[in-house]
């Protein structure tokens, strides 16, 4: 089965407000896929569907041949053991050291002896370059370091699917490249499949194999990094080149400017 994730006709609505409208996506194994779009376009909601947190109103998400919303709680937990998710700000457990954070899943899901867990944790931390921080508390780490520790925790049990929710948010330029390269390298080293939800287009295009552009809950463009760079689609052009105005207007819709000013007077 070459495709790890298949999304077909995915629709989702909060109350009566449609958030996702007829999404179709396919993630082949071993690839790094980016889902891009502006804040509030539905991309995090989409990621939550892939993680099985939300149930679609219509359509389905299939991971490793199984339709997620048909799984019961135990089935979902079994599936999530094969997944890893990096949250926007790391979501490290603040009452545990870096070591215990990375060891958390190993202790919860395996009966491995403590000395093997120690070796595995050190290997994971070494992979993200932070072996020396194992005794620190999360509050003692910088934002970029916390994100890397969270990445080590995400890959603790060698997941087949890694989900990244805005992994570049709030990082300095050096941390940005470090995290970007780690996403690519870890994906290739683990033979995993990665889905990166982001609005950081420049960093993402360096590392991803395929890009989906989402706007207003629907896919408006897709293709390889080169396709996206050379796209003529107005929205993609505005996004790639960071133009202030375009299909996505600078001004939030409102009453006519002149009328608003007159009302003030």
């Amino acid at each position, binding site marked *: 089965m070459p495709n790890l994730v298949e999304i077909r006709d995915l629709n989702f609505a909060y109350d009566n407000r449609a958030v996702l409208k007829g999404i179709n996506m396919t993630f082949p194994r071993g690839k790094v896929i980016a889902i891009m779009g502006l804040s509030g376009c539905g991309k995090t909601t989409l990621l939550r569907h892939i993680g099985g947190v939300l149930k679609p109103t219509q359509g389905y998400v299939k991971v490793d041949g199984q339709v997620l919303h048909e799984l019961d709680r135990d089935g979902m937990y*079994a599936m999530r053991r094969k997944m890893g998710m990096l949250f926007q*700000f790391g979501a490290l457990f603040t009452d545990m050291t870096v070591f215990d954070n990375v060891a958390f*899943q190993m202790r*919860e899901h395996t009966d491995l002896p403590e000395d093997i867990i120690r070796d595995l944790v050190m290997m994971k931390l070494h992979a993200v370059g932070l072996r020396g921080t194992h005794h620190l508390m999360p509050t003692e780490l910088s934002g970029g370091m916390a994100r890397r520790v969270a990445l080590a925790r995400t890959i603790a049990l060698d997941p087949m699917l890694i989900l990244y929710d805005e992994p570049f948010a709030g990082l300095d330029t050096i941390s940005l490249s470090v995290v970007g390269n780690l996403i690519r390298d870890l994906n290739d080293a683990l033979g995993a499949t990665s889905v990166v939800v982001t609005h950081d287009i420049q960093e993402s295009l360096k590392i991803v194999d395929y890009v989906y552009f989402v706007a207003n809950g629907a896919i408006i463009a897709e293709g390889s990094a080169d396709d996206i760079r050379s796209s003529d689609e107005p929205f993609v052009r505005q996004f790639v080149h960071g133009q202030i105005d375009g299909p996505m207007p600078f001004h939030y819709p409102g009453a006519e400017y002149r009328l608003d000013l007159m009302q003030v007077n």
Partner: protein
Amino acid sequence: MAILNALRLIGNRTVGAVWRIGFATRFFVMTLLYSGASFRRFHLTIREMFSSGVMSLIIILVAGLFVGIVLGMQGYETLKRYGSESALGSLVALSLVRELGPVLAALLFASRAGSAMTAEIGLMKATEQISAMEMMAVNPIARVVAPRFWAGVISMPLLAAMFSAMGVIGGYEVGVVLIGVDEGSFWSQMQAAVDFRHDILNGVIKSVVFGLAVTAIALFEGYDAPPTAEGVSGATTRTVVESSLAILLLDVILTAFMFQGN
């Protein structure tokens, strides 16, 4: 139109309240259902007993001592009018064991440990730690909520017992050492008056029930808190207010059941 809006508001509030009660009940049942790990991996519960129970010790012991000292002074003044100063020991012990120990220790526990539990769980939710746990296929109710719940239920009677013990010491220091009540009658009257089943056991039952109520409220409020700064602060306030009222209401109900009237 105004009537329609008022009706709509009442309906909305009622549905909201019923939904919340339903969610709280479901949460409590889930906590009990997923309690296995709290006992299989008892170190998780012990860790929480340290942070909610042991860390509350100082305030409980100091408050117990002060209450005992006040009881000693007030009790002596009243008993002296009837020439029964020798009954000071039984008055101090019975007041503490039956009533003041469980109730005051629970009120202090609610404001010290209950509020901390709510804030901790609320912040764990706000910083996506609870969601991260779910995504790691670890049930947060079993891993985070249940150990804290049982830690509270176990700690509460122990804290109440220590509160009462300190109170007795306070009463002794004031009554016997400072005022000069006969030491022998202080202790012997206490020993004769305090019944294990009617006094001590009833006090223990009260403190277990209070512990259950306070931790259940604190954990639910934390888990239900909106993931914002205002949400967590509001939930912490609600924990202290609701727990205090619950303790006093439950005290009335339990005392009525335990009242013998003879």
